[in-house]
């Protein structure tokens, strides 16, 4: 954790706040924005001198630089990283930086000037770094030109540092706040004239600076969407049919309508009932007391065992397609001196964000507004428009920082549609809808369930003769985006096993290699979950690789290296993690190592885990060492934080699953969906052996090596491979 040893070097942020209201109010006049909270303020009137130099940079008279952020902040630190990139090129004073979240309506009104707002796929930094840096550089050039014009000197004679412009010839100096008004009136520079700094010259970007958004998270001041208060606001909560595909038949409103504060009990779609009250607790209590009759529909008898059987049929079926198909893997394996075959299975799991699903909707005759923690504000805007019936231009989405995202709040805007359906009954009144935790667990878009049949052979010298991977499982695209499936081949489910470079390339090459996918869908909705399909594919690939190495009588690290000569970046992180972890060196008695490497989101990850397993089957993960090559690092401390977080998010899947009985989700709350706690958290060490020649993601890449590294250490400790999760299926528990 890079900067933890010298936190005194970090800039003080206590006096600076993440400005939602204030900064937006200032720019509100400049841009004619609607204020985020729909409140005109005196501050807005007094801030007329704030200058929008360009869409990314607003400078206040006191030299504060407000940097606009288009991506969502859900804890992953993108807000701070993007601000660092803009500030680096802007040459402003980092102590005087604040940020402002743009709205979907603002982006629409300015023809998507801020580009993509979706925050998913670890793309927040890597896919906007170029244009936000250019935005910072262009603003700097305009501010310098404004000073040059004022002084009548060539702009090339000016210098700038920390937002102070100087002209050494005349000894004059000024600051960004003083020239911003004039700069804002200048023609922006020709994009071809913008030269970005070399990464080696960075002073703000690339440093482990403190986050800009921490202060309000320490004292209760931060307003999440669930915390919004508005005059006259009503509160709602919902219950959707607990069996997917079922319908709401009837409910007995008379039993609850007289309860304190209850305003309305209403059917909001085919399968969902809502209670609206003057407080959320009263709505929740009435909903719990409401007699409801469901038509459970065609899936009421589905359970985890029947789903597993359905997936098993895909392990040997003829309906699969091959993606990598080099040589003849099945034939080579059959002819081998030694061979091994194994079936792996990974269950569904849930996102379980700490802030439950919620939104606040206000529908007025001339405007539809929503306040929502969303990973995709533009998708929320489209859903708001289609469900409210108002054109996009009359809709607005206020992006609230998310209390966790992990992929739950991206594509399917179920929450928007529900919130709008309720608010339609209360025109002009803001209605906040909040799901209970039980509703959140029961109506997620789960990480897809998957199985794999793995087969390999080795020759009498211990060399791999062939590798054959058959994945069978549910398809995210089939549920969420069928158009992405070309020619019936859903390649997305083989993420991390792809032959193509740059994104999620398989780390091994061999003369006889085949990867296949057979689609086996279930009635449960599925969606992206931090790391998406690299999670299960990383387990299949990396745990089986240890099984094959064992069959070959070789060290798992050395066995991998022999297959990676054509994958230098994969090999680079594998070697870096192994070296940092002291692979091959003695360990305390009873402690064993496991190693894994995999690729996702344009970045290369490897991990070594140190684990002990007691006679009672208690698994203790002592230490995890990671190497991540994401090309360029904008904030090494926040990159480390994301890796630490991926450990906890990944390790929860060792002890919990989402299972199905009678068509319903069994794990209804934290008592039976056990989330990992601090006691189970290992030491985490991170090295970033970045190569600097590309931009990869950070939030998701490492999660796919967390679980396989730990499972391989368990295998080393017990002599038995772990082929299915959670660990309870092997009589193991995480401690």
């Amino acid at each position, binding site marked *: 954790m890079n900067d933890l040893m010298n936190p005194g070097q970090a800039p003080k942020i206590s006096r600076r706040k993440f400005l939602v209201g204030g900064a937006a109010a200032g720019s509100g006049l400049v841009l004619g924005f609607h204020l985020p909270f729909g409140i005109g303020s005196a501050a807005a009137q007094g801030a007329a001198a704030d200058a929008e130099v360009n869409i990314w940079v607003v400078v206040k008279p006191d030299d504060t630089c407000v940097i606009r952020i288009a991506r969502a902040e859900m804890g*992953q630190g993108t807000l701070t990283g993007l601000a660092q990139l803009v500030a680096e090129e802007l040459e402003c004073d980092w102590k005087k930086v604040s940020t402002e979240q743009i709205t979907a309506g603002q982006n629409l009104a300015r023809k998507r000037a801020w580009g993509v707002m979706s925050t998913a796929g670890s793309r927040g930094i890597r896919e906007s770094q170029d244009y936000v840096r250019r935005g910072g550089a262009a603003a700097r050039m305009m501010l310098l030109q404004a000073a040059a014009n004022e002084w009548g000197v060539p702009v090339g004679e000016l210098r700038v540092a920390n937002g102070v412009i100087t002209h050494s010839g005349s000894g004059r100096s000024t600051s960004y706040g003083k020239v911003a008004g004039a700069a804002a009136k200048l023609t922006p520079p020709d994009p071809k004239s913008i030269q970005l700094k070399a990464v080696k010259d960075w002073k703000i970007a690339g440093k482990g600076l403190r986050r800009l958004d*921490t202060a309000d*998270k320490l*004292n*209760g001041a931060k307003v999440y969407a*669930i915390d919004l208060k508005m005059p006259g606001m009503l509160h709602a909560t919902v219950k959707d049919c607990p069996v997917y595909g079922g319908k709401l038949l009837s409910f007995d409103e008379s039993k609850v309508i007289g309860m304190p504060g209850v305003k309305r009990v209403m059917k909001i779609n085919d399968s969902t009932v809502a209670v609206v009250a003057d407080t959320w607790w009263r709505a929740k209590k009435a909903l719990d007391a409401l007699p409801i009759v469901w038509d459970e529909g065609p899936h009421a008898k589905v359970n985890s065992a029947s789903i597993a059987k359905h997936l098993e049929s895909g392990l040997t079926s003829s309906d699969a397609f091959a993606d990598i198909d080099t040589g003849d893997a099945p034939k080579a394996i059959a002819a081998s001196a030694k061979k091994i075959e194994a079936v792996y299975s990974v269950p569904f799991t849930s996102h379980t964000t700490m802030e*439950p699903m919620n939104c606040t909707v206000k529908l007025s005759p001339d405007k539809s507004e929503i306040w929502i923690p969303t990973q995709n504000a533009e998708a929320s805007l489209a859903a708001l428009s289609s469900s409210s019936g108002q054109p996009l231009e009359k809709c607005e989405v206020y992006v609230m920082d998310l209390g966790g995202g992990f992929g739950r709040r991206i594509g399917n805007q179920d929450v928007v549609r529900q919130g709008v359906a309720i608010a339609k009954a209360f025109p002009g009144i803001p209605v906040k809808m909040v799901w209970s*935790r039980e509703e959140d667990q029961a109506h997620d878009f789960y990480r897809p369930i998957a199985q794999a049949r793995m087969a390999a052979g080795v020759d009498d010298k211990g060399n791999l003769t062939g590798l054959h991977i058959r994945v069978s499982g549910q398809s995210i695209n089939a549920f969420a985006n069928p158009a992405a499936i070309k020619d019936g081949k859903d390649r997305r489910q083989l993420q991390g096993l792809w032959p193509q470079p740059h994104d999620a390339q398989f780390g091994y090459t061999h003369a006889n290699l085949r990867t296949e996918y057979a689609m086996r869908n279930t009635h449960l909705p599925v969606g992206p979950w931090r790391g998406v399909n690299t999670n299960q594919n990383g387990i299949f690939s990396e745990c089986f690789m240890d099984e094959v190495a064992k069959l070959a009588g070789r060290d798992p690290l050395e066995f991998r290296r022999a297959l990676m000569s054509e994958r230098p970046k994969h090999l680079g992180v594998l070697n870096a993690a192994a070296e940092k972890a002291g692979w091959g060196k003695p360990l305390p008695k009873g402690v064993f190592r496991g190693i894994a490497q995999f690729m996702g989101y344009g970045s290369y990850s490897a991990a070594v885990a140190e684990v002990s397993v007691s006679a009672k089957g208690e698994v203790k993960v002592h230490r995890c060492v990671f190497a991540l090559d994401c090309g360029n690092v904008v904030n090494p401390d926040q990159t480390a934080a994301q890796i630490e977080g991926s450990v906890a998010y990944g390790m929860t899947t060792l002890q919990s699953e989402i299972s199905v009985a009678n068509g319903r989700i069994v794990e209804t709350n*934290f008592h039976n969906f056990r989330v990992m706690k601090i006691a189970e958290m290992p030491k985490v060490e991170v090295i970033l052996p970045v190569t600097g020649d590309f931009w990869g993601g950070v939030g998701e890449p490492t999660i796919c090596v967390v679980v396989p590294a730990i499972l391989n250490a368990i295998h080393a400790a017990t002599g038995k491979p772990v082929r299915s999760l959670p660990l309870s299926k092997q009589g193991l528990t995480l401690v």
Partner: protein
Amino acid sequence: MAQLNINGRNYEVNVEADTPLLWAIREQVGLTGTKYGCGVAQCGACSIHLNGEVVRSCALPVAAIKPGDRITTIEGLSKDSSHPVQKAWAAIDVPQCGYCQSGQIMAAVALLAKKPKPTDKDIDEAMTNICRCGTYHRIRAAVHMAAGGKFAAAVTADQQNA
């Protein structure tokens, strides 16, 4: 109707007796730093101090609050985020999304009040709050950091406040 003393101020709240303290604090008093996470005292997002002891307010009915009970929420921990736990949390940049951190901080303050120099095992046993972002690694470091600072004085202040 219930009388609540929160952060040194008295509030009269008009709620049914079975209303969880969490919802009285959030919806009647209007202090939203204390969070809803599960409603069944499992996750700890709703942690507050009741007479200096950490409790999970989502499963504690208002009727259980006695006259004279002193409730402290995250908003009442310090006037200016100067509590050593808050300072340690800031120095290490503990929060990611931040949603659970009010509860984490309240749990840490209560732990340090009882054990000014907690061991890792003490932390494991006392800090059972859930964080989905996985900030556990830094929570542990921050608790130790707070314990190494001028913590004793601040605990006294907190207890007085509570």
